[in-house]
């Protein structure tokens, strides 16, 4: 995408009928680190790659609990993602307060999409630079949605966003037909496999990824590191390199493998 005279304002159309600022916002999503979601009839699993800028710092939080029955994983400008998560939490709380009942996820994503659309039609605003994978429950079961900076939203059986997400999408496209009736544990396993694809050969350990689950009868929660590492070992999901001699040292080796770091064209604000 090259710079042109129609891309300064979000309120300027190009002659071809495009809003370049909105498209640039979607580029920001593509540059963020990967986030994946998949769903069965009763559960949704969200997973994301969590790389820290250095060994000294903590990871960026990319998965947020919005309510007991809704969670979101983000890719792109994580600060924008945090703000939108706060909005979503607020909407859920207000709905629960008025109706003593959880806000159906399908209605929340429409509100979110309408909020994003506003930013594409005001000259004094900019689009949110974050893509959100929203997983949640309503009366008809489990749902996964993708909300994009343009204000569009789509429902998915499985999806991946962020850098190197195409690799994950390829894996998901092969397997998505099995997801509807999949068990919760198999769904998590598939999420880990899909996540591994985005690491492009790097070793998958619980220190580089975060997994969260929500389902009928299971409140949204992020799985803790030991559980995730246990699942990785159980399913023997390791990188193509030979496994290290000492498995308990795996977390340290995982982070040294991560020293290759994110690609150079990632903006510093959104690992």
């Amino acid at each position, binding site marked *: 995408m090259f710079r042109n005279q129609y891309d300064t304002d979000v309120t300027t159309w190009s002659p071809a009928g495009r809003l370049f600022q909105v498209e640039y916002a979607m580029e920001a999503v593509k540059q963020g680190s990967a986030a994946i979601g998949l769903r069965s009839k009763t559960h949704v699993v969200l997973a994301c790659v969590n790389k820290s800028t250095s060994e000294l710092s903590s990871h960026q939080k990319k998965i947020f609990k919005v309510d007991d029955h809704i969670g979101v994983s983000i890719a792109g400008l994580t600060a924008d993602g945090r703000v939108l998560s706060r909005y979503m939490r607020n909407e859920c709380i207000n709905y629960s*307060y*008025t*109706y*003593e*009942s959880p806000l*159906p996820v*399908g*209605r929340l994503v429409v509100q979110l999409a309408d909020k994003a659309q506003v930013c594409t039609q005001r000259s004094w605003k900019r689009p949110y630079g974050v893509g959100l994978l929203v997983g949640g429950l*309503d*009366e*008809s079961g489990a749902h996964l949605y993708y909300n994009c900076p343009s204000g569009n939203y789509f429902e998915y059986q499985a999806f991946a966003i962020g850098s190197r997400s195409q690799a994950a999408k390829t894996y998901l496209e092969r397997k998505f037909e099995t997801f509807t009736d999949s068990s919760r544990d198999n769904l998590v396993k598939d999420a880990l496999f899909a996540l591994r694809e985005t690491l492009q050969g790097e070793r998958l350990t619980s220190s580089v990824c975060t997994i969260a689950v929500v389902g009928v009868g299971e409140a949204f929660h992020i799985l803790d590191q030991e559980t995730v590492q246990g699942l990785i070992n159980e399913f023997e999901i390791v990188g193509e390199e030979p496994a290290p001699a000492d498995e308990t040292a795996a977390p340290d080796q995982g982070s040294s493998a991560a020293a290759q770091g994110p690609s150079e064209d990632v903006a510093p604000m959104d690992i």
Partner: protein
Amino acid sequence: MNVSDSTPAMNNLMGSEADSQRTLYPYVTGTSVVGIKYKDGILLAADMGGSYGSTLRYKTVERLKSVGKHSIIGASGEISDFQEIMRNLDDLILYDNMWDDGNSFGPKEVHNYLTRMMYNRRNKFNPLWNSLVLGGVKNGQKYLGTVSMIGVHYEDNHVATGFGNHLARPLLRDEWHENLTFEEGVKLLEKCMRVLLYRDRSAVNKLQIAKITEEGVTISQPYALKTFWGFSAFKNPTAGAEGSW
């Protein structure tokens, strides 16, 4: 703020135009509503009277209405406030239906919405002068609750408003049980309504019964209860005191 501060005599001292904007006392009122859970759902009963003070002025007031697919509501108190509440609820259900996404408000959600509405108005010292009964069935779950004009709300297997609390609830506490059939439920409600007809001066002998089950809502045509006044104690009431009445 005491009741005596709101009497007509004190109005001018309390702030002029502000008072004409808030509810001070009701004008046309409905009396008790009685509701019970039964085997297949909920039954509500209310008469069709609208009293204007002590005058039994209007006799075709429908105080039982359906709310969406899953709930029915019965109101006592100010009839115009009930009409306002219905306008509000109909809008709520309309917007809920417009989502067209397979989700719909059940009785629990409607009850809570009403509670918020009544409590909010009470906090502004401008209440909707009603006591409401809200019942319904959704996904096999029966729900029966009540909200008062000050926002007091609770659920139970049988509820009533106004005089019904004093005259009907004791009967229901003795005779209500889980798994009443429809016929048993109606008979029990009619027993309550008969007592109310005898003893509540604002009751009229023209009532409706509303039923809600998973299948839907039915509100009966108005009908009257049979009453009996031939008690020997009522014969020759002035026998011991000539000239009295």
